[in-house]
């Protein structure tokens, strides 16, 4: 097992102390970056092979380059700290335990893409993370790491923190921009993409907390070092949120070559004696189920794809054999029906229909044709929804049906 990188400081330093952060490598990457040209920094991120940790796995360097090339100003850097995917809590652990790392990474990103202002959008229920970040930003500003002429250079950059207000969909990047702009958080049609027209209509780089947390380490140790960790398609360390029926639920750092079994039985201590794995919901409510037989699958994108499971946000929810799985599916269905923003009909109607049908199936009182109807709705939502919420809302439920994890009651 490798020593933790992203979690290296978490729990080992006082997260409110700049001196502690500096003593553990803090802000050295920024100093290094300010001596290079912005293009070199973008090149380094591209060469690292880093892919977005917010769920979509988009190549980070490609995004940085697209924003760097935009001639329009101002440009913005946004940190997506809205973390609301069920079963996901890694970003909270980073924000609470190592807030200066996000600040440092955002300044580096701003320098690389030519942005002058950054926003951190923090989930509304993350009070401690918000307080720690606010403190980190003001302490960093006083110390000259933020503001005008950062560390005596020509580069100026500042950060504003915004609180979310309890809407899952606001984690979707364009909905998040709408929210910062003071509107209801409804996703926009894409294109145009954020790299061209993002926050306030300006070129915008948006990255997840964990994605950003990788950046200072890539700068310090180099892209080649980063690529040695993980798999060719998914280099670098990854955070996994292991929850549910394990002895030690928590955030674990590992390369994606680790298997579900090693993560669950090794790192998270396995299930309490007498309990067995019934199913594993991987990737959040927007994810899909793995079966106990699939536990030797590594968490690489390719291996997961072969079993029809997305890595998503890195949520690994372990469900033991005592839990009625229909109750789990009810919660997933209710979640999407509640969180659909209502902008497009396939999702607005589909998530409600899906919830109604799942409720009937969970009660053991389906109507004839309910399962076929569920599949129809799923296909329509996947094809015709504007954003990822509607596009993924049926995945977990379909995967439970397809893998035979739940039995379908027969209509009366």
């Amino acid at each position, binding site marked *: 097992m490798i020593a933790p990188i992203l979690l290296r400081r978490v729990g080992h330093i006082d997260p409110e102390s700049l001196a502690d952060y500096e003593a553990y490598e803090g802000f050295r990457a920024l100093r290094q970056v300010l001596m290079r040209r912005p293009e070199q920094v973008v090149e380094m991120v591209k060469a690292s092979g880093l892919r977005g940790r917010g769920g979509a796995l988009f190549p980070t360097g490609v995004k940085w380059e697209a924003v760097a090339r935009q001639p329009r100003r101002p440009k913005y850097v946004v940190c997506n700290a809205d*973390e*609301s*995917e*069920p*079963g*996901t*809590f890694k970003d*909270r652990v980073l924000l609470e335990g190592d807030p200066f790392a996000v600040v440092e990474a955002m300044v580096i990103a701003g320098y690389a893409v030519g942005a002058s202002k950054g926003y951190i959008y923090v*989930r*509304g*229920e*993350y*009070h*401690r993370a918000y307080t720690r970040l606010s403190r980190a930003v003001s302490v960093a500003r006083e110390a000259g790491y933020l503001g005008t002429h950062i560390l005596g250079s020509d580069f100026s950059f500042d950060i504003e923190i*915004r*609180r*979310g*207000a*309890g*809407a*899952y969909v606001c984690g979707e990047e364009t909905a998040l921009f709408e*929210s*910062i*702009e*003071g*509107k*209801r*958080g409804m996703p926009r049609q894409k294109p145009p993409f954020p790299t061209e027209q993002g926050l*306030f209509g300006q070129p915008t780089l948006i990255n997840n907390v964990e994605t950003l947390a990788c950046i200072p380490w890539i700068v310090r140790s180099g892209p080649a070092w980063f690529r040695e960790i993980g798999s060719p398609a998914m280099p670098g360390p990854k955070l996994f*949120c292991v*929850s*549910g*029926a394990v002895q030690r*639920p*928590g*955030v674990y750092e590992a390369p994606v070559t680790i298997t579900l079994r090693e993560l669950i039985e090794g790192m998270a201590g396995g299930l309490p004696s007498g309990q067995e794995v019934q199913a594993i*919901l991987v990737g959040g*409510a927007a994810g899909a189920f793995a079966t106990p037989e699939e536990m030797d699958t590594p968490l690489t994108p390719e291996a997961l794809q072969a079993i029809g499971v997305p890595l998503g946000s890195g949520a690994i*929810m*372990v*469900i*033991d054999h005592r*839990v009625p799985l229909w*109750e*789990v599916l009810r*919660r*997933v269905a209710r*979640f999407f029906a*509640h*969180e659909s*923003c209502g902008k497009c009909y396939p999702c607005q109607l589909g998530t409600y229909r899906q919830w109604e049908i799942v409720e009937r199936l969970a009660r053991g009182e389906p109507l004839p044709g309910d399962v076929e109807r569920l599949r129809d709705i799923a296909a329509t939502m996947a094809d015709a929804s504007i954003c990822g919420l509607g596009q993924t809302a049926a995945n977990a439920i379909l995967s439970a049906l397809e893998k035979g994890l739940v039995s379908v009651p027969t209509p009366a």
Partner: protein
Amino acid sequence: MHSPQPERWQQVDEIIQRWATHGRSGLLPCLLEVQDITGYLSPELCAHIARHLRVPEADVYGLISFYSLLYDRPVGRVVLRVCDDVPCYVRGSSELLNALQEALGLEPNKTTADGAITLEVHPCLGRCERAPFVLINDDEIGPARAEDVLARVQAHLQSAPSTLSERAEDPAATEEGTG
């Protein structure tokens, strides 16, 4: 009827003034910060904020109805958010929720008759390693047992200052303070 608390209105006006220069982009943080003090956003407060941030009043209500953490009617001084999402459910959130409902005599999303406690059932609160998890205002409890939650609720009720919203004051009366 209690006596008004001028220092709280002053806090509200300071918040509004700070965000007024941001216009519409200041609306959501302004509403959240004001609500931190007032407990909920009364029609008078909404009108007041709309005027100072120069946005239509309808847009203020649009935000309140969209965002689940914004309230346009009074909520309890103590808001209990019980997570009932998958990881918490696997670790006993249903039993916890039932016990709390019974002890408090409350259905989900209802407030006790004395306006003290609101009970909400919540999707994942992002603390699944502490399942089953409960937020009491912004105080975290997990793994939560019903007895501990109830004791902590009592402690909050004794210490939590009553909010401005209980004091039926008209914000227009402090207009001169907002400049």
